[in-house]
């Protein structure tokens, strides 16, 4: 599908119907997810704070997923010098930063009632997500600092790929550090031990975030394509 969409005109035609569809789907899923979230019984350990989990955990998943998309688009942009791939990477970055910030903030809100602290240094997931947020801001800072688009594209792509390679190493290094310190109580976001009454709303919220990201991403890429077309037209008019 990706090669077929690589053509800008076909992409624009595709995204014209796909974006609103994904958006509508996202709204429905979000509504369903929130309903299930608030009707779910409180957890015996976490109490009512479990409701924040449904907002926080999918955000954390998305923060990584969006970076993977950023990395993939950057790879195509660098290797094939593809302008649409570059537009996709550029469009994804602020979305990724936003969802990562949301994950950090909601994680903090969830952490206070659950473990008694707003933040826990030395938890692998929290530190990795924080570094991930820094990687997004680094990408956007570099993008903003280079004015010439022809130069910005490969440079930001290189940075995205370097970050992508480093991310698992960062995570692993913090895991290792925590094992050295036997730190504070482990963050248990879920996983296979999660009871099904929580699993369903979590997955629905996850899908809601995914389709929401899809819709917003397509819209932003369209915006980038329009912006570039307008710039080219302005250049031609001035020449």
């Amino acid at each position: 599908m990706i090669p077929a969409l690589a053509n800008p005109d076909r992409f624009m035609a595709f995204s014209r119907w796909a974006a609103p569809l994904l958006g509508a789907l996202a709204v429905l899923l979000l509504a369903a997810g929130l309903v299930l979230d608030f009707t779910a019984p409180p957890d015996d350990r976490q109490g009512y704070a479990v409701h924040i989990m449904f907002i926080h955990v999918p955000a954390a998943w998305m923060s990584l997923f969006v970076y993977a998309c950023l990395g993939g688009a950057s790879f195509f942009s660098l290797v094939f010098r593809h302008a649409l791939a570059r537009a996709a990477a550029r469009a994804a970055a602020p979305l990724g930063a936003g969802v990562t910030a949301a994950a950090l903030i909601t994680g903090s809100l969830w952490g206070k009632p659950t473990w008694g602290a707003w933040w826990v240094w030395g938890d692998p997931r929290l530190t990795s997500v924080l570094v991930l947020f820094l990687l997004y801001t680094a990408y956007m800072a570099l993008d903003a600092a280079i004015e010439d688009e022809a130069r910005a594209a490969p440079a930001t792509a290189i940075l995205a790929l370097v970050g992508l390679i480093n991310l698992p190493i960062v995570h692993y290094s913090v895991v290792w550090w925590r094992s050295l310190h036997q730190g504070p109580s482990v963050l248990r976001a879920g996983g296979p031990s999660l009871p099904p009454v929580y699993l369903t709303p979590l997955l629905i919220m996850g899908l809601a975030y995914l389709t929401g990201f899809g819709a917003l991403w397509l819209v932003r890429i369209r915006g980038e394509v329009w912006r570039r077309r307008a710039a080219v037209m302005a250049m031609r008019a001035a020449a």
Partner: protein
Amino acid sequence: MSGFSLILRREFALAFAGGGGPLVAIGFFLAMTSLLPLALGGSPERLAGVAPGFAWLVLALAALISLERMFERDYEDGSLDLIALGPAPLEMAAFAKALAQWATTTAPLALVAPFVVAALGGKTALWPIITAAGLTGGLAFAFLGGIGAALSLGSRRGGILIAVIVLPLFTPPVIFGAGAIEAFGAGLDWKTPLLFLAAYALAAAALSPFAMAAAARNALS
């Protein structure tokens, strides 16, 4: 004389011609050291406890100093064109530049670090691990920093942009180095983190020249 040694010798000469090579970075290191007791309040125990970690962190920060000059000077006066078009690959020139950065900035810092720890009242017995971690981690800092320096060529933001790009990438070596120092001090297994640090540094040294060269070529285009 091979291309590699030509560039290496030139980088050394330029580092010391600009006024004392590692002295700027060492000066930064010492200035921060003198500020720490003032910032922390005078309790000697607290200072001593914090000393190794602090020295390690400031070493990482000081490594960022003079990163800007790694490629920027050559880019500005046209030497980078000559280097890029020469018979030796740009990757090799990038490797030589980063190696020179390590030798003239981060390695001297690693040698000064134990004195800093001692000055702050930390355990002097830590000096072997601090030096080892500083030398190894310094290699990672120099090569990762080179990526940041090459990526920010031609942009006006310079130093602070390099820091923003590079500091997230510093996380693994900082963690492994700190872990090694702490483990050594507590009598635990310090070899494992030091090995991880070495592995990371060697991987960075092997791979980052490709990213640096790609970024430099991009800036020249």
